[in-house]
């Protein structure tokens, strides 16, 4: 009996460890960083391919469809939508829809279905013209599949903004949505981490099989090839050959050490910094921009959500609390605030309806004219200046900076525009049939 009990206890312990490794609930933040970066990389890369679309993936281009039969031996599992979309207009339509989806993927808009199209399109491009398939496409195939399986779009995304906005419209401007965390998120994050570790492990191991890597000369050879030729580096390396040895062995060391050091709490920051440094070198010295950037995004899976939370808390503390005072009777104002505050992911701005809760800093007469933002030092900024101050200090609003900070022009247009809206807010509210909901 005791043997059975021991086996049962061991199995229970094993299940607990398994759960801790794979299913301890976590937020999606690291995967969202990867999503944003990969979306931006795909958008840029394929956007720049647009002028050559017909050459690259068209039937009259560099890789006619008939060539693919011998390439894939008619394997039915090799599938690409571009095997079927053969007319030029279909190719262009497919491409533009793909670019739109990459943008949406990057911004996190309708992420739950957009991500699947991005994956399918990426595989379609890869299989349609295998001559372009190289390192970055390999890693993209792995990362995109994991991102598709993961519940992404729940943070750092327009989907989150929409969810917060909806909550604020229902429950008042103070309402918010708790950060999403789930067991499956952890499982997908772990899969991406394993993908990166496996990649580095095999990359390091395969290098050790080569004579030029073992002799510590591989980096010299890299810079003598036509693709990465650099007279500057050859000059430098020829007079300081130890640099070549250092860079060659350093590359293999970082790749192999990563696999073992990335999992421990204490060593993870160093392993991660080493990997990011390595890829920065590939990008800057060898010109492998796209590859290196995508690899860095893969490494983002090792960023601990608590690091990001700490960073957010530090930023919030540094900027200090801000209070936005608005007119709760104005439906248009409440609706605009709902939109604006939905981007305040760190909840840096608190709100006060001066009709229900008068401010000790700004008089009601002033607030009849403008919305005000009260700063940590007690200063109060009116109208356009309030928004202008906030967008620079709330990370979720940084995309608005170009509108608020064009020298001279932003104030020249923004201030009268705000003033006009503020003085006509009742009319705008009734025109748009916006009645304020009771705020809590």
């Amino acid at each position, binding site marked *: 009996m005791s043997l059975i009990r021991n086996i049962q206890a061991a199995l229970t312990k094993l299940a607990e460890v398994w759960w801790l490794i794979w299913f301890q609930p976590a937020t999606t933040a690291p995967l969202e960083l990867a999503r944003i970066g990969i979306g931006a990389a795909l958008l840029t890369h394929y956007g720049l391919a647009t002028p050559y679309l017909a050459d690259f993936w068209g039937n009259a281009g560099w890789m006619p469809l008939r060539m693919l039969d011998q390439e894939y031996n008619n394997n039915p599992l090799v599938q690409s939508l571009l095997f079927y979309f053969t007319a030029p207009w279909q190719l262009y339509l497919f491409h533009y829809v793909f670019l739109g989806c990459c943008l949406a993927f990057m911004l996190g808009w309708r992420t739950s279905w957009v991500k699947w199209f991005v994956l399918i399109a990426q595989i379609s491009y890869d299989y349609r013209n295998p001559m*372009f398939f190289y390192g970055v496409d*390999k890693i993209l195939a792995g990362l995109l599949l994991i991102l598709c399986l993961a519940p992404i779009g729940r943070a750092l995304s327009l989907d989150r903004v929409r969810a917060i906005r909806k909550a604020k419209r229902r429950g008042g401007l103070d309402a918010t949505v708790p950060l999403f965390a789930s067991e499956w998120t952890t499982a997908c994050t772990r899969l991406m981490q394993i*993908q990166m570790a496996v990649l580095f492990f095999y990359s390091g191991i395969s290098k050790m099989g080569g004579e030029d*890597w073992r002799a510590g000369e591989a980096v010299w050879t890299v810079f003598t090839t036509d693709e990465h030729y650099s007279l500057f580096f050859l000059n430098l390396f020829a007079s300081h050959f130890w640099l070549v040895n250092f860079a060659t062995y350093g590359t293999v060391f970082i790749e192999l050490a990563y696999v073992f050091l990335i999992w421990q709490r204490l060593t993870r920051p160093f392993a991660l910094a080493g990997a990011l440094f390595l890829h920065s070198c590939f990008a800057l010295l060898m010109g492998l921009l796209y590859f290196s950037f995508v690899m860095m995004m893969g490494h983002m899976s090792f960023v601990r959500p608590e690091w990001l939370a700490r960073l957010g808390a530090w930023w919030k503390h540094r900027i200090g609390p801000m209070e936005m005072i608005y007119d709760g009777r104005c439906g248009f104002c409440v609706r605009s605030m709902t939109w604006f505050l939905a981007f305040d992911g760190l909840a840096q701005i608190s709100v006060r309806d001066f009709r229900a809760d008068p401010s000790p800093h700004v008089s009601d007469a002033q607030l009849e004219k403008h919305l005000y933002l009260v700063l940590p030092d007690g200063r109060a900024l009116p109208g356009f200046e309030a928004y202008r101050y906030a967008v620079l200090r709330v990370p979720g609003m940084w995309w608005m900076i170009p509108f608020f900070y064009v020298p001279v022009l932003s104030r020249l247009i923004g201030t009268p525009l705000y003033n006009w809206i503020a003085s006509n807010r009742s009319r705008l509210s009734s025109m748009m049939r916006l009645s304020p909901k009771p705020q809590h």
Partner: protein
Amino acid sequence: MISEKLRVRLTYIAMSAFVTWHTLAMVLAPAPESDVTLLARQALQPYLTFFRLDNQWDFFAPSVGEGSRLRYDVQDRDGKVHAFMPAAELRWYHPNFLWFRSWYYRIIDDPDNFAESAGVIFCRKHAALRPLAITFYEIQEEKFTPEDFAAGKQRMDKDFFSVRMLRGMRCPDP
């Protein structure tokens, strides 16, 4: 109706099965051939192929190797030969650098299938020269050591590359 507890347990089993499967796929795809990996591959191959996951992570390995370049000579109707190195027009920071090079490598690796269509494109590109024929060559780089560099030799000195003719063809009539 299944109970909540059973539903949760089944969900965990399904999630565990998938993460095990996918991890196996990621680990075994680049693994060297052996009886075990070959056996596992039989089950994993459709999954790896369909999602394009069957990759070797062997960047610049086992050996960096020497590079090679594509050159083509266009002969005009007066018999004059004009040599072109198409990769020289590319800029490292543009994705073109990879796309066009990939095409040039494909012409080098498989001239029987790719040189002819490339010839048509290049003849059209140089129509102003009134091209009559085009010939493709591979410039194969040879080892270039730090000692060579220190001795004042250049990477493109003829000691450090060999030329291999790939294929010649007549340009189509304009």
